[in-house]
């Protein structure tokens, strides 16, 4: 019987397989950041162990870093201490680090791919659940906890039980207004936050094949929000073109050997998935969340659902709690929800294409009165590219704030936070209670919807703008 993409990559990394034990997998790339690594380095120190493969390890600073005044000392002493701990750990153990102020600094999941370190057929881990992002290259990439970070540092391997496989096939053409973010939000609403649990998802089908590399990263990034262990997309010409010439992409004969291998990384025709979901791309529309988990979403044209409409008791209860927390009432049109803040950024939607998409909507328009819009590039490289294209000017001319790279308001570990009761439209990935600041209320959206929402001050799609602009009576 044939094998799926995930199974092929898995099999290629088995260091040891024994009856009754999890497989021991070799890890090709280990990404580190300041939040989930300190206790792991401490463990190494206590046991007197070195980092086994410094040449497969890289660190950056992202979660705590400020997005303003980055040349000044970090105001929050606890954040500063955590960054200093990472710097000391990397210096002590010899780990390559891109600290705040470095040209390669940024959100860890933006940095890996842009350096060309994330490659098809590799295993990638990081003490961060959104490591699933790297699966867009046909890598097997998953988030791990701090004990596992220590395990990988010490051994470059991880004992893992093999997950099952799920195919999510998206066929047809995505309508013009529909982005990768809308697609993944719709998928999570469909299968639920536990729907992918225990699975590695492979996204496939003609609609996926047409997506750019960055759009594919947006999809794989949010696999974890469906509970999946990882998300993957088979590598193809789009992947190879993206990688060619990047800092750490193979060159010369290595490039040819790599491409020959990468081309084998496709699910065999006779392979069988443990579960399958099929989605018709043509039926999708811009999608936003109304609740407090990423599965609580609906098309922008819909209304806030009535909790009573849920048959399942725990879903009904969750919906009631969510509406209470979000300050919404059943039946309210989603388009009527006004926001205080718009956040464009994160490892979901903080890459250059995302900034271009948001800029193209907001160009020549203004952020609505009373609305604050933050644009936070995913990395310094993304920021530099945006400046070169003049996107920073487009944003600031519209009244948005152009900030320094980092995680920022995606999780509010730095000063970029919502105040209690404040409402945001955010291109990030989690609308959990308090995620963007204590008492803050988050609606997850695409960059285009974020920009249109900033202009109108309420949840909106770009199409709403052209209508709003057309003078009455002129059609």
């Amino acid at each position, binding site marked *: 019987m044939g094998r799926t993409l995930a199974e092929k990559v898995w099999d290629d990394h088995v*260091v040891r397989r024994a009856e*009754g*034990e999890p497989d*021991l997998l*070799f890890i090709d*790339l280990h990404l580190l950041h300041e*939040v*989930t690594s*300190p*206790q792991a380095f*401490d463990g190494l120190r206590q046991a007197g162990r070195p980092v086994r493969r*410094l*040449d497969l390890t890289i660190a950056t600073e992202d*979660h*705590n870093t400020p997005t303003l005044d980055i040349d000044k000392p970090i105001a929050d002493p*606890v*954040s500063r*201490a*955590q960054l200093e701990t990472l710097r000391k750990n990397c210096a002590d153990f010899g780990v*390559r680090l891109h600290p705040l102020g470095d040209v390669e600094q940024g959100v860890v999941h933006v940095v890996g791919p842009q350096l060309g*370190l994330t*490659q098809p057929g590799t295993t990638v881990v990081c*003490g961060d*659940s959104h490591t699933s992002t790297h699966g867009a290259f046909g890598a097997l990439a998953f988030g*791990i*906890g*701090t*004990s*596992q970070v*220590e395990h990988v540092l*010490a*051994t470059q*391997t991880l*004992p893992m039980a093999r997950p099952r496989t799920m195919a999510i096939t998206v066929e047809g053409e995505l309508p013009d207004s529909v982005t990768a973010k809308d697609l993944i939000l719709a998928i999570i609403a469909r299968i639920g*936050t*536990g729907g992918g649990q*225990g699975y590695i998802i492979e996204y496939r089908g003609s609609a996926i094949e047409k997506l750019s590399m960055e759009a594919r990263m947006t999809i794989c990034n949010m696999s974890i929000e469906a*509970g999946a*262990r990882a998300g993957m997309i088979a590598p193809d010409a789009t992947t190879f073109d993206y990688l060619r010439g990047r800092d*750490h*992409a*193979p060159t010369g004969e*290595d*490039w040819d*050997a*790599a491409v020959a*291998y990468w081309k084998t990384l496709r699910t065999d025709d006779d392979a069988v998935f443990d579960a399958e979901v099929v989605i018709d791309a043509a039926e999708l529309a811009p999608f936003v969340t109304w609740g407090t*988990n990423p599965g609580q979403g609906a098309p922008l044209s819909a209304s806030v659902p009535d909790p009573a409409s849920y048959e399942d008791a*725990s*879903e009904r*209860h*969750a919906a009631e709690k969510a509406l209470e927390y979000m300050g919404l009432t059943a039946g309210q049109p989603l388009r009527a929800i006004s926001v205080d803040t718009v956040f464009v950024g994160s490892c979901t939607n903080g890459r250059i294409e995302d900034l271009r998409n948001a800029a193209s909507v907001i160009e020549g328009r203004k952020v609505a009165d009373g609305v604050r819009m933050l644009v936070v590039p995913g990395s310094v490289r993304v920021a530099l590219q945006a400046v070169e294209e003049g996107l920073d000017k487009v944003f600031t001319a519209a009244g948005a704030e152009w900030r320094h790279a980092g995680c920022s308001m995606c*999780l509010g*570990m730095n000063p970029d936070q919502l105040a209690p009761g404040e409402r945001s439209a955010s291109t990030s990935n*989690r609308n*959990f*209670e*308090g*995620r963007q600041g*204590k008492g803050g209320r988050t609606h997850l959206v695409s960059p285009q919807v974020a920009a249109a929402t900033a202009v109108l001050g309420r949840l909106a799609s770009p199409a709403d703008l052209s209508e709003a602009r057309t003078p009455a009576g002129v059609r």
Partner: protein
Amino acid sequence: MEAFTAHTGRAVPLRRSNVDTDQIIPAHWLKKVTRDGFEDGLFEAWRKDGDFVLNRPEREGASVLVAGPDFGTGSSREHAVWALQNYGFRTVISSRFADIFRGNSLKNGLLTVVLDQAVVDRLWEITEADPTAEITVDLEKRQVLADAPDGSTLTAAFELDENARWRLLNGLDDISLTLQNEADIATYEAARPSHKPRTIDA
């Protein structure tokens, strides 16, 4: 890691589904660089409400958390496990755990027990009716026991893969176990193709 054989303790019934790790321990606690001192951050936002189940005097000292489905979703933060342990929980029962959370728990000796929602419902009823009711989680027998107020005893079997169970029962540290296979790792490394990425020249 502390070994886990069997544990008996009073329970906290947490009737909520989709409790993500941001709720278990909010992000601002993640700035700490140690593994201890997280107990005050556990469910921090909900604990502001005096009625929240953890705040009730009769729940003080409880060590078994009986949670709703999809417990531990979201962020991979192991701090969520440390916070539960620092607070005094030894085991968490739910009908479904998020994968990363479950992996993190078992690596730290916090036993996550998966039971059918119907059994979880029953445990909620028992421990809500009688806050002094004790739940026993026996890893050797793979069994959960609870005495109901009507005098009957609830007994439910649970599954856990043999390898994870063996590690927990013996409190074994994964890294030392893996390093016993050093030769296998070295053999694999020697055969790795040269086109694979490197972060620095070795």
